[in-house]
């Protein structure tokens, strides 16, 4: 049990670090997917621990949300790329105060 | 239902006006807006008929649950004080609309929004005066900032954005402090039974001395900014100097009255102990306001700032009367709110007409106008005389009641405050002398006298000012029964005459 959770959290952290250090928006997205998957693992593990399927249902929902997110996210990347000819997240810095 | 209708009619009217097709001259919008305001006035007169003067207390009450979980109600009701203020609002709005008829000629397409915002302001002000639920009061209190912000910022002149932002932030700050107190009341009421914001429920709350004082301060600071009390007054001259005359009237004559109205309705009634605790400081601040506003007005060269500063002085009188806690002074204060609304409206509107003709608000740019525009100068003089509380004009009655009531409570304060009447004569007559008399300034030589529309706009206000100067009783009869419970709540009351009592009784018998 503990090992599953540890793995899940390790993957989550790796994903988080990836988000922070990678600049290619697509890879950043992949890292986000990794984080989502890590939580799914935890959900599934908890489902087994508690002996009901709610965790699996949650993982299921997470997948749906992830799918939707990827759809939109990639569309955004494409449209950004179209106007700015880049997929580096550092180039989209209009938020700069 | 009547009160809700009274709020709904101008609000719907505003919607209609805003959605009307934008014509080049905006005539339709003006006519519709005026019609709506007249309808509202008639409805408020109907309200007067429904209202039972004798019985006092809150009448025409409504109570619908609004946000159940928080115990918030859409609760309306008026006593004599609220009714007076509503009446002031409904009377002034048509006057302002007619006087603003030709405003914004440079940008006629925006006439619709201009008039729509004014109607929105009217509706919100009525709501504030009628609310008996403190949460609803708070929401509407803050909501009045929105139309005013746009009226100043979008339709004003000069440094209008600066003035609008200053106005908004200043008042919002006060409102947020008040919000803290509203939340405090919520917590208290939740602890003592269910959550409720209803005025009647809140009056029964038990609170410790410190709690009461803190909550009182939250409300009082918000109202003192609104009213505006020295030293929280500096937003007013800026806002008035940038707003159109109509906006200034609605702001100073109606919306600022929410401050003094709130002091009576919420500060005094909910926190009588704390009010009494704070009264020495408030009385001193009010007295400073009276003299300070007057002295500053003397030194002004901008007509609109001058009138705004005279209002600071007058608000000092109103607050003085409220916190003297005698029925005489408080009745005077409520009456003062009404009368000050009228006299300031006249002054602001006439000043607006002068500025429109001259293209400048500087007093030194005028001179000798009396010769070419006698009616204009006559109206200005009557407005000015009412502002300096000449007996025979409405504000005198209220000012005297305030001073006489305060005198029975504190002779030094009343004496110093009475100096204000001398200063009032100086600032009004100095302004009149510099604008209207003396040799004719070339720039003012081509002045048109008031048009028939302008006279029509001013006439009702002037008639009321003169009429209420001699016959204030109809209003006093409405106000007096409503003030009595407030005075009793605070529990200080009118001191008896200081002369030996037996003699007093004897002469009262002789007086009959």
């Amino acid at each position, binding site marked *: 049990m503990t090992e599953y959770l540890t793995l899940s959290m390790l993957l989550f952290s790796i994903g*988080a670090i990836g*988000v*922070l*250090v990678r600049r290619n928006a697509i890879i950043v997205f992949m890292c986000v997917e990794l984080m989502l998957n890590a939580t799914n693992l935890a959900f599934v593990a908890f489902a087994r621990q508690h002996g009901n399927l709610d965790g699996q249902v949650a993982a299921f929902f997470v997948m749906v949300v992830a799918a939707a997110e990827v759809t939109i996210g990639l569309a955004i990347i494409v449209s950004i790329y179209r106007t700015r000819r880049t997929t580096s*997240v*550092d180039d989209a*810095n*209009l938020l*700069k*105060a | 239902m009547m009160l809700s209708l009274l709020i709904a009619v101008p609000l719907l009217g505003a919607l209609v006006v805003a959605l009307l097709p934008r014509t080049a001259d905006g005539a339709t919008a003006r006519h519709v807006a005026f019609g709506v305001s007249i309808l509202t006035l008639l409805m408020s007169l109907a309200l007067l008929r429904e209202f039972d003067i004798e019985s006092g207390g809150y009448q025409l009450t409504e109570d619908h649950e609004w946000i159940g979980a928080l115990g918030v109600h859409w609760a309306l009701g008026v006593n004599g004080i609220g009714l007076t203020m509503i009446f002031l609002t409904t009377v002034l709005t048509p006057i302002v609309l007619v006087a603003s008829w030709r405003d914004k000629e440079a940008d006629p397409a925006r006439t619709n929004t201009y008039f729509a915002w004014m109607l929105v302001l009217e509706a919100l002000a009525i709501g504030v005066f009628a609310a008996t639920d403190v949460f609803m009061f708070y929401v509407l209190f803050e909501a009045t900032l929105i139309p005013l912000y746009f009226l100043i910022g979008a339709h004003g002149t000069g440094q209008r954005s600066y003035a609008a932002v*200053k106005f908004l932030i200043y008042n919002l700050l006060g409102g947020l402090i008040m919000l803290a107190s509203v939340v405090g009341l919520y917590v208290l009421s939740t602890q003592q039974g269910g959550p409720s914001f209803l005025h009647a429920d809140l009056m029964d709350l038990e609170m410790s001395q410190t709690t009461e004082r803190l909550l009182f301060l939250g409300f009082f600071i918000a109202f003192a900014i609104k009213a505006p009390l020295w*030293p929280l*007054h*500096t*937003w007013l001259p800026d806002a008035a100097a940038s707003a159109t005359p109509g906006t200034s009237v609605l702001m100073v004559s109606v919306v600022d009255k929410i401050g003094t109205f709130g002091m009576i309705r919420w500060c005094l009634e909910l926190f009588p102990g704390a009010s009494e605790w704070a009264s020495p400081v408030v009385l001193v601040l009010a007295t400073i306001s009276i003299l*300070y506003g007057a*002295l500053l007005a*003397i*030194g*002004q060269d901008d007509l609109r700032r001058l009138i705004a500063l005279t209002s600071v002085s007058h608000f000092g009188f109103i607050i003085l009367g409220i916190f003297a806690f005698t029925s*005489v002074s408080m009745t005077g204060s409520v*009456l003062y709110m009404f009368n000050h609304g009228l006299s300031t409206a006249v002054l602001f509107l006439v000043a607006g007409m002068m500025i429109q003709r001259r293209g400048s608000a500087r007093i030194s740019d005028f001179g000798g106008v009396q010769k070419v525009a006698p009616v204009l100068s006559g109206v200005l003089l009557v407005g000015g*005389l009412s502002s300096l509380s000449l*007996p*025979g004009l409405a504000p005198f*009655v209220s000012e*005297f*009641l305030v*001073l*006489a*009531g305060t*005198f029975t409570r504190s002779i030094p304060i*009343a004496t110093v405050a*009475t100096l204000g*009447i*001398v200063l009032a*004569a*100086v600032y009004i*007559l100095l302004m*009149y*002398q510099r604008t209207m008399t*003396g*040799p004719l300034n070339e720039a003012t030589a081509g002045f048109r006298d008031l048009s028939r529309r302008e006279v029509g706009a001013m006439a009702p206000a002037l008639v009321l000012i003169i009429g209420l100067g001699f016959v*204030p*009783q109809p209003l*006093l009869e409405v*106000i*007096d029964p409503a003030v*009595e419970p407030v*005075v009793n709540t605070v529990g200080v009351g*009118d001191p008896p*005459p*200081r*002369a030996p009592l037996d*003699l*007093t009784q004897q*002469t*009262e018998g*002789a*007086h009959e």
Partner: protein
Amino acid sequence: MLDLSWLLIAIPLAGAALLLTWGKESDRFGHLIATACSAASFVLGVVLFVELAGRDAEDRSVTTDLGTWIDAGPFRADFSFTFDTLSSLFVLLITGVGTLIHVYSIGYMAHDERRRRFFAYLNLFIAAMLTLVLAADYLVLFLGWEGVGLASYLLIGFWQHKPSAAAAAKKAFVMNRVGDLGLALAIMTMFAWFGTTSIAAVNDQVHSVSGNVATALGLLLLLGACGKSAQFPLQAWLLDAMEGPTPVSALIHAATMVTAGVYLVVRSHDVFDASATARNVVIAVGVITLLMGAWIGCTKDDIKKALAGSTMSQIGYMMLAAGLGPAGYAFAIFHLLTHGFFKANMFLGAGSVMHGMNDDVDMRHYGALRKAMPVTFYTFGIGYLAIIGFPGTSGFFSKDKIIEAALGHSVWVGLAALLGAGVTAFYMTRLMLMTFFGEKRWRDDVHPHESPSVMTVPLIVLAALSLLAGLMALGSWIEEWLEPAAGHAEHHDLPLPIIVITLIVLVVVAAGVALAWLTYGRRQIAAETPADSEVSAFTRAGRAELYGNHVNDALVVRPATHLTRALVWADAKVIDGFVTGGADRLGEISGELRKPQTGFVRSYALMVLGGALVVLLGLLAVTLA
């Protein structure tokens, strides 16, 4: 019938309202309406007076209640009017002299394009003044009190295109307001102590309070009286008020309004009876003003200002008399009435002279007018005789009584009054000599002529009254008549027999006349005013109105101006500076907070993760603890 006294006020008030709101078409006949209103009021006044006189002495006071004016909590003021012996005399004076001046003004203002407005203001004044004297409640009295102030303001500044007139009007109103401050505080004190502002009730109860309260009340009322009656220290506005049209000076600033202070003191006599201190202050004020006014009158070359100085001085007499207590009230009122006649007469005469001299007011440009304007001369002459107290004229009786009473009170006060009488004789003789006698010193384009009869008839009537009003003193009628209103007077023992006093007064007056004759009658009078450097310090001080304006400037106006400027500066820099400064500080803090906002998504993400870490640590800490 007597409860119709409110109609006295209503008629001229309606006239004023009508004329102010009616359009230009009423220009042609507006003055006639106004005159008719005033005359109607006078006729009604006479009828009421006769009816009052027909009653028993105890019943000579009728109070009419028109209803409540203000009723708030324990405060109550009614629109009630008292028609009694005191107010009836005033009604006759105001409406009578007022009507005459209306008639006179028809001629005097014939060529003014705003004549209708002038008459409206005159009617407004009559109404306000009648309110003042008829009021049965101090608050209603205050209404009239400020009403006459307003009328005075409007009329002094009637020729508004002259900056001096506008400034004088404002000055008069503001200085009056200082006095009104006193009256207002007095009314508040009455309410606080007696719970009522009814004149009768207050005067009833005032004996029941401590002397300090009565003194305070008396001094506050006196402050009001000083403002309205141009008494020291609020005297400075009256001479400037001469900027108004001459009929205004005659009606308001000589005959009626300025005497309202005396009326107030007499009306509130119980207050002053209760406080010897207050009475003494009244006397002091009266004596000081009496001498000041006389001094100023001696030095002015402007005929209206010389007369205004004289008015101050004469009102000082009345004030002095009123301060003497029950012994003097009736004499104060008596002198007030006779002064109303002869001073109005002389002011109108001066107006007639000015009318003939192209509105020149400088007496140095007059001379030898007795031939050119005979009617004016004779009527003015009668006024002159009356004011110096020539035996047989009204002034002789009224002034003599005051001097007697003053001597009865204190030798020093009596001597001051006596001195005043001598100086009065001097400056009035000077005025007569410079205007009507001597040689012509006319400007080139001036062709003096007698005024039209519409102006001379009022002069003749007033002259007759000046001559005959002394009849009121026959058999102490005036004292008896006023007794119900002003209280019973105990006769004091005088230090000297009356006849001796009268003789002394006459000798002093004769000396004054002789001195004036020596100075101005026998010598050539310079056609131009001598420069200040050529005249004595006495004259210089008089011309400068005894430096009253300088004192006001130094003590009030300049400090107030500086204070105002300082406050305007402080408001913008300190109070508003605090507000805007706060906004600026906030802006600076925001500027600092902007720096971490790099715009890089990844640094925001790092902050989010860091935040999550902190939250996690906190949770763990809480769980473990």
